């Protein structure tokens, strides 16, 4: 038993992926998709999902830790679903369409990678403690 609604998940995941609250339309689509294509919740998944929804600031670390090395997880499946939904919302199109090289391109890419590595390490520690 996870103890929260699909709506709670959508809001938490949307906030993590976008940095702000997702639109009501995106939340509604997530709820609809979760009913139509339910994910298999493996042992341990429920705790991770609950932790991510109750402490959305930890989602980046958990997500990164589950991605490297790749580990099958309902949390990642749910985050992928929310990502796909956000990608098909017109207001977010430019977040997903290829962008031209900005000023300081490699610096931007390097900082992003460094941040991702930090979140991954933090996530590994959290996963080890759970």
């Amino acid at each position, binding site marked *: 038993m996870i103890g929260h609604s699909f709506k709670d998940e959508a809001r938490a995941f949307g906030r993590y992926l976008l940095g702000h609250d997702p639109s009501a339309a995106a939340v509604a689509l997530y709820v609809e*998709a979760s009913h*139509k294509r339910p994910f298999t919740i493996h042992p341990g998944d429920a705790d991770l999902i609950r932790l991510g929804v109750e402490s959305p600031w930890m989602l980046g670390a958990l997500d990164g830790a589950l*991605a490297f090395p790749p580990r099958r997880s309902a949390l990642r499946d749910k985050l992928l679903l929310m*990502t796909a939904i956000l990608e*098909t919302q017109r207001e977010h199109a*430019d977040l997903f369409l290829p962008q*031209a*090289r900005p000023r300081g*391109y490699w610096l931007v890419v390097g900082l992003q990678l460094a941040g991702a590595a930090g979140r991954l390490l933090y996530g590994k520690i959290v996963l080890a403690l759970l």
Partner: protein
Amino acid sequence: MELADAIVVGSGCSGAMAAQTLVEGGARVLMLDGGVRDTRYADLVPAASFADLRRHDARQHRYLLGDDFESIPTGAVTTGAQLTPPRRFLIDRVDEFLRHESSTFFPMESLAYGGLGAGWGLGCCVFSDNELAAAGLPVTEMRDAYQTVADRIGICGAADDAQPYTFAHVRGIQPPPALHPSLEGPHRAYAAKKGALNARGFHFGRPALALLTEDAHGRRGIDYRDMEFYDDKSQAAWRAWIAVDRLRQDSRFAYHGGLLVTRFSDGPDGVEVEALRLDTRERVAYRGRELVLAAGVLGSARIVLRSLDGGGGRLPILSNPYYYTPCVVPSAFGTALPDRLNSMAQLSLFHDRDGSHRDVAMASLYMYRSLLLFRLLREVPLGMRDARALMNYLLPGFVIMGLHHPEAGGGDKWMALEADSASPTGDRLRTTYVLDDETERQVRAREGQFTWAMRQLGAYAIKRVSPGQGSSVHYAGSLPFAESDRPWRLDPSGRLHGTRHVFVADGSGFRFLPAKGPTFTLMAHAHLVARRLTRR
């Protein structure tokens, strides 16, 4: 319609081409077909470019993800994973009517109007003389047949190093579409390293595609909307249904859809065909003077197995081993992309091991944009948010290399019908497809050579993805051509041995399946089978 001169089963590329040749030869043709269409998404997709609809269409999630979110992957990559929601009608009702069982082979079959051709990648490579001979096809006649098909469908390509492997001797070729800006680097790198690559058997260039780049054949040239995986609005891409639509204007042609042909009975004066209505499951019968099976290799095998020998036969099968590899092209990171692009294969890399045009493997390079970013994010070893932010800038540098290997048999590969009381036809096809160790070793070794060649072009393989055997959607060899009258064989005209009026116009007779993509050859062969019939 009176007794048809020929009944053609299937409206895919082979069926459409055979029917067109028969009708043009004066025959009265009846086409029997599954006829499944997309009634859900076709009207939703706007006539805008991919980038434009992404920024403006509030309903885009419906055709990009699907009303049932069927486009979102939930497990391992399998056959058909690349089908977008508006293309998924290709496989509608297949699980119900074309039941299949296997733990080693995962084919794609279709009951769609236009068959699997509705999702065809448009590649139009001719088989070399050596490949044709190995497949059991007549070299001189096939050369003429390729030209006839090219004149009907319209092909684009480039006179470059790949030409001997793509359109070769075929004339009337339109110029290729604009090359994706991200692949200009590898294209230039080939010019600089051509000597070393050629010395190891590699040849690189633009693919030949059944895609108009200029208005012709009553169709418009490519519109660069980058929506080829979703719709056929401009009809620049040739699809079998376009040919069937045109045939339906001809009084000598009749089309009956909503049917699954199950068996035939060959008699002295003609043939009787039994079919099942998809909606009511009622059995119906048709009579014709000749029968042309173009139901796809697995579909035709089912019909032949049921009709002869009480369904107890076991048939061989060929299928190109297929793998794909996401690659990074660092020179393309951060490339500004124009809105006007196209989704089809951009470049082709051929490996002709000994220069004989007999043992050729082929890789096609595709760009990723119109398949949406989320599918790629799933494979990136970073959290979704970090991956999204990075890929926003790096995506133009990601290329998909789809690699096909030739297939000459060997190993444990066969199919047979077995009883299935839950099936509307009372049976299902069981298939086994296992490569022998030596073939597996050769395939792996060759992939290593492709990885080397791609590095020379400035593209670096990240991982190897195997969607499973059968995922090439290239099948052949179930009723191999044979001169002598032997059971389960076709004679060189395509006639099924042991019958008088039953011809097979798909790839069932090919004894060898080159890696180049068989569709152009299937159409040329279907034209030949039909032309011989019109002369009977």
